Protein backbone atom coordinates (compact mmCIF):
# COMPACT_ATOMS: atom_id res chain seq x y z
CA UNK A 1 0.00 0.00 0.00
CA UNK A 2 1.16 3.53 -0.68
CA UNK A 3 2.47 5.47 2.30
CA UNK A 4 2.75 9.20 2.88
CA UNK A 5 6.37 9.76 3.80
CA UNK A 6 6.36 13.56 3.86
CA UNK A 7 4.10 16.58 3.77
CA UNK A 8 5.21 19.92 2.30
CA UNK A 9 3.08 22.99 2.85
CA UNK A 10 3.07 26.74 3.08
CA UNK A 11 0.05 26.75 5.32
CA UNK A 12 1.04 25.92 8.88
CA UNK A 13 -2.52 25.58 10.10
CA UNK A 14 -3.64 23.21 7.33
CA UNK A 15 -1.63 20.20 8.38
CA UNK A 16 -0.86 18.00 11.35
CA UNK A 17 -0.18 14.35 12.06
CA UNK A 18 2.29 11.49 11.73
CA UNK A 19 4.34 12.13 8.61
CA UNK A 20 7.27 14.58 8.68
CA UNK A 21 6.02 18.03 7.80
CA UNK A 22 8.13 20.58 5.91
CA UNK A 23 7.12 24.23 5.94
CA UNK A 24 7.93 26.26 2.87
CA UNK A 25 8.12 30.06 2.78
CA UNK A 26 6.47 30.50 -0.60
CA UNK A 27 4.97 28.51 -3.45
CA UNK A 28 8.30 28.51 -5.30
CA UNK A 29 9.99 27.25 -2.21
CA UNK A 30 7.28 24.62 -1.92
CA UNK A 31 8.09 23.32 -5.43
CA UNK A 32 11.78 23.25 -4.60
CA UNK A 33 11.37 21.30 -1.37
CA UNK A 34 8.94 18.87 -3.00
CA UNK A 35 11.36 18.38 -5.89
CA UNK A 36 14.25 17.72 -3.58
CA UNK A 37 12.24 15.23 -1.53
CA UNK A 38 11.02 13.45 -4.64
CA UNK A 39 14.54 12.88 -5.87
CA UNK A 40 16.07 12.01 -2.52
CA UNK A 41 13.35 9.63 -1.37
CA UNK A 42 12.63 8.22 -4.82
CA UNK A 43 8.97 8.83 -4.11
CA UNK A 44 6.29 10.68 -6.04
CA UNK A 45 5.32 14.25 -5.17
CA UNK A 46 1.58 14.77 -5.51
CA UNK A 47 -0.30 18.04 -5.31
CA UNK A 48 -3.32 18.02 -3.04
CA UNK A 49 -3.86 21.73 -3.60
CA UNK A 50 -1.65 24.67 -4.43
CA UNK A 51 -0.30 25.04 -0.94
CA UNK A 52 0.02 21.37 -0.03
CA UNK A 53 2.14 18.57 -1.48
CA UNK A 54 2.38 15.02 -0.22
CA UNK A 55 5.33 12.72 -0.90
CA UNK A 56 4.06 9.21 -1.50
CA UNK A 57 6.05 5.98 -1.33
CA UNK A 58 4.74 3.24 -3.63
CA UNK A 59 7.55 0.74 -3.36
Amino acid sequence: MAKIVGVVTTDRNGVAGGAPIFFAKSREDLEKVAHMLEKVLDCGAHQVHEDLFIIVDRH
Partner: protein
Amino acid sequence: MIIIEWLNKYEDYASVIFGTAFGLIARLMMLRSDYRQYPAYPHGKIVHLALGLIAGALGAVAVPALYHKDYTAITFLSLAAQQFREVRNMERTTLNAIDKYELVPRGAAYIEGIAVVFEGRNYLAIFAAFLTSLASMTISWIAGLIAGLLSLLLVHFFRRGKSIQHIAIIEMAPVKLDGPNLFVGDVYIMNVGLEENRKIIEEEGLGFILHPKNDNARVTLSNLGQRQAILHDLSTRLGVFRDEGDPLLLPLAKLGLKTGKLGLFVLPREKDKSVAYHAVCNVPLLEAAVRMPTEANHRHSQGAPNG
Protein backbone atom coordinates in the same frame (compact mmCIF):
# COMPACT_ATOMS: atom_id res chain seq x y z
CA MET B 1 23.50 -41.98 -55.55
CA ILE B 2 25.32 -43.71 -52.76
CA ILE B 3 23.45 -41.63 -50.28
CA ILE B 4 20.08 -42.57 -51.74
CA GLU B 5 21.01 -46.22 -51.74
CA TRP B 6 22.13 -45.93 -48.19
CA LEU B 7 18.88 -44.22 -47.21
CA ASN B 8 16.87 -47.00 -48.81
CA LYS B 9 18.90 -49.65 -47.12
CA TYR B 10 18.99 -48.35 -43.59
CA GLU B 11 15.55 -46.89 -43.06
CA ASP B 12 16.04 -46.82 -39.29
CA TYR B 13 18.96 -44.47 -39.56
CA ALA B 14 17.25 -42.47 -42.26
CA SER B 15 14.19 -41.87 -40.12
CA VAL B 16 16.28 -40.89 -37.12
CA ILE B 17 18.43 -38.52 -39.14
CA PHE B 18 15.51 -36.88 -40.89
CA GLY B 19 13.49 -36.70 -37.72
CA THR B 20 16.29 -35.10 -35.76
CA ALA B 21 17.08 -32.68 -38.56
CA PHE B 22 13.49 -31.54 -38.95
CA GLY B 23 13.07 -31.27 -35.20
CA LEU B 24 16.09 -29.02 -35.04
CA ILE B 25 14.95 -26.97 -38.04
CA ALA B 26 11.54 -26.56 -36.44
CA ARG B 27 13.13 -25.28 -33.23
CA LEU B 28 15.39 -22.99 -35.22
CA MET B 29 12.41 -21.56 -37.05
CA MET B 30 10.67 -20.81 -33.79
CA LEU B 31 13.72 -19.26 -32.20
CA ARG B 32 13.42 -15.64 -33.13
CA SER B 33 15.05 -12.75 -31.42
CA ASP B 34 13.00 -9.68 -32.07
CA TYR B 35 12.18 -6.44 -30.30
CA ARG B 36 11.58 -8.37 -27.13
CA GLN B 37 15.31 -8.93 -27.23
CA TYR B 38 15.09 -12.39 -25.91
CA PRO B 39 16.88 -14.71 -26.49
CA ALA B 40 19.28 -12.26 -28.03
CA TYR B 41 22.28 -13.48 -26.10
CA PRO B 42 24.40 -15.85 -28.18
CA HIS B 43 24.66 -18.28 -25.32
CA GLY B 44 20.93 -18.19 -24.73
CA LYS B 45 20.55 -19.23 -28.35
CA ILE B 46 23.03 -22.06 -28.01
CA VAL B 47 21.17 -23.40 -25.00
CA HIS B 48 17.93 -23.50 -26.91
CA LEU B 49 19.43 -24.97 -30.06
CA ALA B 50 21.04 -27.74 -28.05
CA LEU B 51 17.75 -28.49 -26.35
CA GLY B 52 16.04 -28.39 -29.75
CA LEU B 53 18.50 -30.99 -31.02
CA ILE B 54 17.78 -33.19 -28.03
CA ALA B 55 14.05 -32.74 -28.56
CA GLY B 56 14.37 -33.65 -32.22
CA ALA B 57 16.48 -36.73 -31.47
CA LEU B 58 14.02 -37.93 -28.82
CA GLY B 59 11.05 -37.57 -31.14
CA ALA B 60 12.89 -39.25 -33.99
CA VAL B 61 14.22 -42.21 -32.02
CA ALA B 62 10.82 -43.06 -30.57
CA VAL B 63 9.42 -44.34 -33.87
CA PRO B 64 12.09 -46.90 -34.85
CA ALA B 65 12.17 -48.07 -31.24
CA LEU B 66 8.43 -48.72 -31.27
CA TYR B 67 8.73 -50.30 -34.68
CA HIS B 68 11.10 -52.87 -33.27
CA LYS B 69 8.70 -53.54 -30.41
CA ASP B 70 11.03 -51.85 -27.95
CA TYR B 71 8.19 -50.37 -25.96
CA THR B 72 10.24 -49.26 -23.00
CA ALA B 73 11.83 -46.67 -25.25
CA ILE B 74 8.70 -44.58 -24.90
CA THR B 75 9.63 -43.85 -21.29
CA PHE B 76 12.36 -41.66 -22.69
CA LEU B 77 9.65 -39.27 -23.78
CA SER B 78 8.59 -38.75 -20.20
CA LEU B 79 12.19 -37.92 -19.44
CA ALA B 80 11.99 -35.34 -22.19
CA ALA B 81 8.88 -33.81 -20.68
CA GLN B 82 10.73 -33.50 -17.39
CA GLN B 83 13.65 -31.91 -19.15
CA PHE B 84 11.54 -29.30 -20.88
CA ARG B 85 9.68 -28.39 -17.76
CA GLU B 86 13.11 -27.53 -16.52
CA VAL B 87 13.50 -25.20 -19.52
CA ARG B 88 10.44 -23.36 -18.39
CA ASN B 89 11.88 -22.96 -14.91
CA MET B 90 15.17 -21.77 -16.31
CA GLU B 91 13.52 -19.10 -18.44
CA ARG B 92 11.37 -17.98 -15.57
CA THR B 93 14.32 -17.62 -13.23
CA THR B 94 16.46 -15.73 -15.73
CA LEU B 95 13.74 -13.31 -16.73
CA ASN B 96 12.69 -12.70 -13.15
CA ALA B 97 16.27 -11.90 -12.23
CA ILE B 98 16.61 -9.41 -15.09
CA ASP B 99 13.20 -7.90 -14.52
CA LYS B 100 14.25 -6.10 -11.36
CA TYR B 101 16.62 -3.98 -13.37
CA GLU B 102 14.27 -2.96 -16.17
CA LEU B 103 13.03 0.62 -16.22
CA VAL B 104 9.64 -0.72 -17.25
CA PRO B 105 9.44 -4.31 -15.99
CA ARG B 106 7.88 -7.14 -17.97
CA GLY B 107 5.74 -8.28 -15.10
CA ALA B 108 5.18 -11.82 -13.85
CA ALA B 109 2.38 -12.63 -16.30
CA TYR B 110 4.49 -11.80 -19.33
CA ILE B 111 7.44 -13.78 -17.99
CA GLU B 112 5.21 -16.76 -17.35
CA GLY B 113 3.88 -16.46 -20.89
CA ILE B 114 7.37 -16.42 -22.38
CA ALA B 115 8.46 -19.39 -20.25
CA VAL B 116 5.46 -21.46 -21.34
CA VAL B 117 6.16 -20.62 -24.98
CA PHE B 118 9.73 -21.88 -24.63
CA GLU B 119 8.49 -25.15 -23.20
CA GLY B 120 5.73 -25.51 -25.78
CA ARG B 121 8.11 -24.92 -28.66
CA ASN B 122 10.27 -27.83 -27.57
CA TYR B 123 7.23 -30.09 -27.69
CA LEU B 124 6.46 -28.80 -31.17
CA ALA B 125 10.01 -29.73 -32.17
CA ILE B 126 9.46 -33.25 -30.80
CA PHE B 127 6.18 -33.44 -32.66
CA ALA B 128 7.79 -32.42 -35.97
CA ALA B 129 10.56 -34.96 -35.47
CA PHE B 130 8.08 -37.69 -34.58
CA LEU B 131 5.94 -37.10 -37.67
CA THR B 132 8.95 -37.05 -39.97
CA SER B 133 10.37 -40.17 -38.46
CA LEU B 134 7.02 -41.94 -38.59
CA ALA B 135 6.50 -41.18 -42.27
CA SER B 136 9.98 -42.20 -43.30
CA MET B 137 9.78 -45.39 -41.27
CA THR B 138 6.36 -46.55 -42.47
CA ILE B 139 6.43 -45.35 -46.09
CA SER B 140 9.82 -44.21 -47.34
CA TRP B 141 12.41 -41.57 -46.68
CA ILE B 142 10.88 -39.36 -49.39
CA ALA B 143 7.58 -39.45 -47.54
CA GLY B 144 9.60 -38.52 -44.46
CA LEU B 145 10.94 -35.46 -46.22
CA ILE B 146 7.45 -34.41 -47.27
CA ALA B 147 6.04 -35.01 -43.79
CA GLY B 148 8.91 -32.97 -42.38
CA LEU B 149 8.12 -30.03 -44.62
CA LEU B 150 4.44 -30.27 -43.79
CA SER B 151 5.16 -30.33 -40.08
CA LEU B 152 7.34 -27.23 -40.51
CA LEU B 153 4.35 -25.49 -42.06
CA LEU B 154 2.20 -26.63 -39.17
CA VAL B 155 4.76 -25.40 -36.67
CA HIS B 156 4.91 -22.07 -38.45
CA PHE B 157 1.15 -21.79 -38.08
CA PHE B 158 1.26 -22.65 -34.38
CA ARG B 159 4.03 -20.18 -33.72
CA ARG B 160 1.77 -17.22 -34.23
CA GLY B 161 -0.22 -16.02 -31.29
CA LYS B 162 -2.88 -13.36 -31.23
CA SER B 163 -2.16 -9.73 -30.55
CA ILE B 164 -3.93 -6.78 -29.01
CA GLN B 165 -5.40 -5.63 -32.31
CA HIS B 166 -7.52 -8.79 -32.39
CA ILE B 167 -9.38 -7.82 -29.27
CA ALA B 168 -9.34 -4.03 -29.18
CA ILE B 169 -9.78 -0.99 -31.35
CA ILE B 170 -6.81 1.25 -30.77
CA GLU B 171 -6.86 5.00 -31.18
CA MET B 172 -4.48 7.79 -30.32
CA ALA B 173 -5.71 10.17 -27.66
CA PRO B 174 -4.43 13.53 -26.47
CA VAL B 175 -2.51 13.73 -23.19
CA LYS B 176 -4.17 16.44 -21.11
CA LEU B 177 -3.15 18.05 -17.85
CA ASP B 178 -5.82 19.63 -15.71
CA GLY B 179 -3.83 21.22 -12.91
CA PRO B 180 -1.97 18.29 -11.36
CA ASN B 181 -4.35 15.72 -12.86
CA LEU B 182 -3.24 13.80 -15.92
CA PHE B 183 -5.76 12.45 -18.40
CA VAL B 184 -5.48 10.43 -21.58
CA GLY B 185 -8.63 11.23 -23.50
CA ASP B 186 -11.15 11.11 -20.66
CA VAL B 187 -9.41 8.40 -18.63
CA TYR B 188 -7.80 9.64 -15.42
CA ILE B 189 -4.20 8.46 -15.11
CA MET B 190 -2.54 10.08 -12.09
CA ASN B 191 -1.74 13.17 -10.06
CA VAL B 192 1.54 14.85 -10.99
CA GLY B 193 2.75 17.32 -8.39
CA LEU B 194 5.87 18.95 -9.78
CA GLU B 195 5.76 21.56 -12.51
CA GLU B 196 8.88 20.20 -14.23
CA ASN B 197 7.38 16.71 -14.48
CA ARG B 198 4.21 18.17 -15.95
CA LYS B 199 6.22 19.98 -18.57
CA ILE B 200 8.04 16.78 -19.57
CA ILE B 201 4.76 14.90 -19.71
CA GLU B 202 3.16 17.58 -21.86
CA GLU B 203 6.09 17.60 -24.26
CA GLU B 204 6.97 13.93 -24.41
CA GLY B 205 3.85 12.02 -23.46
CA LEU B 206 1.80 9.94 -25.87
CA GLY B 207 -1.67 8.64 -25.19
CA PHE B 208 -3.74 5.75 -26.50
CA ILE B 209 -7.22 4.57 -25.80
CA LEU B 210 -7.98 0.87 -26.28
CA HIS B 211 -11.64 0.06 -26.81
CA PRO B 212 -12.38 -3.60 -26.12
CA LYS B 213 -14.23 -5.27 -29.01
CA ASN B 214 -16.40 -7.46 -26.79
CA ASP B 215 -16.99 -8.53 -23.21
CA ASN B 216 -14.21 -11.13 -23.24
CA ALA B 217 -11.79 -8.51 -24.48
CA ARG B 218 -12.88 -6.22 -21.67
CA VAL B 219 -11.71 -8.76 -19.10
CA THR B 220 -8.44 -9.37 -20.92
CA LEU B 221 -7.64 -5.67 -21.16
CA SER B 222 -8.33 -5.14 -17.51
CA ASN B 223 -5.80 -7.81 -16.57
CA LEU B 224 -2.86 -6.14 -14.85
CA GLY B 225 -0.31 -8.51 -16.39
CA GLN B 226 -1.55 -7.77 -19.89
CA ARG B 227 -1.36 -4.04 -19.24
CA GLN B 228 2.19 -4.31 -17.95
CA ALA B 229 3.10 -6.36 -21.03
CA ILE B 230 1.76 -3.59 -23.29
CA LEU B 231 3.77 -0.96 -21.42
CA HIS B 232 6.93 -3.04 -21.49
CA ASP B 233 6.68 -3.82 -25.19
CA LEU B 234 6.03 -0.19 -26.04
CA SER B 235 8.95 0.90 -23.93
CA THR B 236 11.35 -1.57 -25.53
CA ARG B 237 10.31 -0.60 -29.03
CA LEU B 238 10.28 3.16 -28.55
CA GLY B 239 12.61 3.66 -25.64
CA VAL B 240 11.44 5.27 -22.46
CA PHE B 241 11.86 8.81 -21.18
CA ARG B 242 12.59 8.09 -17.57
CA ASP B 243 15.22 7.18 -15.06
CA GLU B 244 15.38 5.68 -11.66
CA GLY B 245 14.34 8.25 -9.08
CA ASP B 246 11.61 9.74 -11.26
CA PRO B 247 8.68 7.77 -9.95
CA LEU B 248 6.14 9.99 -11.66
CA LEU B 249 7.62 9.76 -15.14
CA LEU B 250 6.16 6.31 -15.37
CA PRO B 251 4.25 4.81 -18.28
CA LEU B 252 0.86 3.80 -16.91
CA ALA B 253 -2.29 2.07 -18.07
CA LYS B 254 -5.55 2.85 -16.34
CA LEU B 255 -9.03 1.61 -16.89
CA GLY B 256 -12.01 3.86 -17.49
CA LEU B 257 -14.17 1.98 -15.02
CA LYS B 258 -17.54 2.86 -16.49
CA THR B 259 -16.67 2.20 -20.11
CA GLY B 260 -14.10 -0.57 -19.72
CA LYS B 261 -11.72 1.15 -22.10
CA LEU B 262 -8.04 1.25 -21.32
CA GLY B 263 -6.15 4.53 -21.21
CA LEU B 264 -2.48 4.15 -22.03
CA PHE B 265 0.06 6.79 -21.12
CA VAL B 266 3.63 6.35 -22.38
CA LEU B 267 6.78 8.43 -22.48
CA PRO B 268 8.66 7.29 -25.56
CA ARG B 269 12.20 8.31 -26.42
CA GLU B 270 11.27 8.29 -30.07
CA LYS B 271 8.03 10.14 -30.47
CA ASP B 272 6.96 8.54 -33.72
CA LYS B 273 3.21 8.18 -33.65
CA SER B 274 2.80 5.58 -36.36
CA VAL B 275 5.55 3.35 -34.96
CA ALA B 276 3.98 3.68 -31.52
CA TYR B 277 0.58 2.82 -32.91
CA HIS B 278 1.86 -0.33 -34.57
CA ALA B 279 3.78 -1.26 -31.46
CA VAL B 280 0.53 -1.23 -29.47
CA CYS B 281 -1.27 -3.23 -32.17
CA ASN B 282 1.33 -5.97 -32.12
CA VAL B 283 1.64 -6.56 -28.40
CA PRO B 284 1.03 -10.28 -27.91
CA LEU B 285 -2.02 -11.42 -26.00
CA LEU B 286 -0.92 -13.21 -22.86
CA GLU B 287 -2.34 -16.66 -22.37
CA ALA B 288 -2.74 -15.92 -18.69
CA ALA B 289 -4.87 -12.86 -19.44
CA VAL B 290 -7.31 -14.38 -21.90
CA ARG B 291 -10.61 -15.23 -20.27
CA MET B 292 -13.83 -16.34 -21.85
CA PRO B 293 -16.49 -15.31 -19.35
CA THR B 294 -19.22 -14.99 -21.96
CA GLU B 295 -18.74 -18.60 -22.98
CA ALA B 296 -18.89 -19.83 -19.40
CA ASN B 297 -21.95 -17.73 -18.65
CA HIS B 298 -23.62 -18.92 -21.81
CA ARG B 299 -23.14 -22.52 -20.80
CA HIS B 300 -24.32 -21.74 -17.34
CA SER B 301 -27.57 -20.20 -18.54
CA GLN B 302 -28.32 -23.28 -20.63
CA GLY B 303 -28.62 -25.40 -17.54
CA ALA B 304 -30.76 -22.83 -15.79
CA PRO B 305 -31.59 -23.43 -12.13
CA ASN B 306 -35.13 -24.56 -11.53
CA GLY B 307 -35.98 -24.27 -7.91
